[in-house]
């Protein structure tokens, strides 16, 4: 590893960090606007033209609020909780290939921080760690609502991780690699996995919603029963970090869904371009796909009511996992047939 590579990777990491934060901040704005539009309202429009400065105002407000730690809380775990959430939300973007190689200053720069040969497993690993932020924060608050939120989060995440993993295995079978880079490259042009694996995509999408704690699976923080769920006791920027991490992981998991099923940065007719033009167009295509996913996730939130907890468990264990396993078996048979193993 030479110095130039170190510099370019650090620059990429910094850029990704800033972009993730910026996107997360404007997701809050977009979410509020979308909610308003669906409910025939106007939404935030006072801070700046069309309320475009609203996230900045919200962020400043978060910083200026009193930072409160309950007297009987476990102080260290209370502080660590939001940190873990934010960390796991941000680190997933390291294995995402954001576009084709770009040529800058005579160097061929890969737009992927780390080309892990097991990138997809890394994503699952980080997702499964992400629940600790919620669990630790919820338990450390020493509040019954927070504890309920934490327990709901953990059982929900464990249940849905299984179906998520099984549905993603079909993609690994098709592309023959665990590396996200290879998975994207195998979907060149319009050869997207969604056309081969619609069922797997459907399951993956639902389980992603559950892993993100987004409606209709937002039981860990549901306001109507648990006040704020795991972040009931949190205030100031600690609460801000929890909310931020939710939006950041929404951004990143939209990227993961786009990579696994919608060809990542591939777009139809990409062979006509090359070099930096292709790189910029591929980034734009990827960004468009991510935006559409974010839009759909928010759209679902403002359409579908929340599940009851037993319905959630029923859906996870008795519907999604069997369907995912059958889908995996069929895919395995077809792959084996095509490879001539049968």
């Amino acid at each position, binding site marked *: 590893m030479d110095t130039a590579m170190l510099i370019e990777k650090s620059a990429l990491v910094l850029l990704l960090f800033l972009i993730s934060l910026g996107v997360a901040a404007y997701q809050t704005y977009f979410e509020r606007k*979308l909610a308003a*539009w*669906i*409910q*025939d*309202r*106007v939404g935030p*429009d006072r801070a700046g033209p069309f309320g475009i400065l609203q996230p900045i105002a919200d962020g400043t407000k978060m910083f200026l609020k009193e930072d409160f730690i309950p007297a009987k809380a476990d102080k260290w775990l209370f502080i660590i909780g939001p940190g873990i959430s934010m960390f796991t939300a941000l680190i997933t973007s390291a294995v995402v290939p954001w576009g084709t190689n770009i040529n800058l200053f005579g160097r061929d720069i890969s737009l992927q921080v780390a080309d892990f040969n097991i990138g997809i497993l890394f994503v699952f690993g980080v997702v499964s760690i992400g629940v600790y932020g919620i669990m630790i924060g919820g338990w450390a608050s020493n509040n019954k609502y927070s504890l309920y939120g934490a327990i709901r989060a953990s059982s929900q995440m464990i249940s849905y991780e299984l179906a998520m993993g099984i549905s993603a295995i079909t993609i690994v079978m098709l592309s023959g690699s665990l590396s996200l880079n290879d998975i994207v490259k195998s979907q060149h042009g319009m050869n997207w996995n969604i056309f081969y694996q619609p069922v797997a995509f459907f399951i993956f999408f639902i389980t992603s919603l559950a892993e993100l704690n987004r409606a209709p699976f937002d039981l860990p923080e549901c306001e109507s029963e648990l006040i704020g769920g795991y972040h009931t006791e949190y205030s100031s920027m600690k609460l801000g970090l929890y909310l931020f991490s939710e939006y950041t992981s929404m951004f990143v998991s939209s990227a993961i869904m786009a990579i696994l099923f919608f060809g990542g940065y591939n777009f139809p007719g990409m062979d006509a371009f090359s070099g930096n033009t292709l790189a910029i167009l591929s980034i734009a295509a990827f960004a468009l796909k991510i935006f559409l996913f974010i839009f759909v996730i928010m*759209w*679902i939130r*403002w*359409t*579908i009511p929340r599940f009851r907890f037993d319905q959630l468990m029923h859906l996870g264990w008795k519907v999604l996992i069997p369907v995912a396993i059958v889908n995996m078996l069929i895919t395995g048979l077809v792959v084996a047939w095509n490879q001539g193993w049968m």
Partner: protein
Amino acid sequence: MESLTNRKKVVSDKPMTLWEKIYIPAIVAGMVTTFKHMLRRRKTIKYPEETRVFAPVYRGQHVLKRDEQGRENCTACGLCAVACPAEAITMTSAERQKGEEHLYREEKYASSYEINMLRCIFCGLCEEACPKEAVFLTDRIVTTEFERDEFIYGKDKLVEAIDDRIDITKRQFTGKRTEK
């Protein structure tokens, strides 16, 4: 019973068919509905920039009128206070002195006239009760205050200024007393 609105739906608890049990068609239908709402025109009125058009019968803050020569109409007869269901109006009467003819139209006038805007229900009965066309409800909005006693409006706030008359023609046209 016969339906009045034609909108009633007969509810049944028969078991769902398989098509209904997948829920996906229902979810898609719901999402189509919300998407349609996204494209609708907003009916919001952005208040400080735009203001709503009030109906002509709108009943807002009261005004004590003066006549064409700038004399107060009110004679402190107390009919408005009697008519007021919320008992918001109090007044004290006084006799007009020599040299005050340009201030008050008749021999008796209200030396103080107070309406408690927190009690007032803006029913407009005071206006109907008034035989002298002195008190009217206008389309002005009662402003917010920080102290309760600031809501007790005295003559300083109620009587219209001589050079800044309050237009009440809308209420005169909709009201019953068009004859002079």
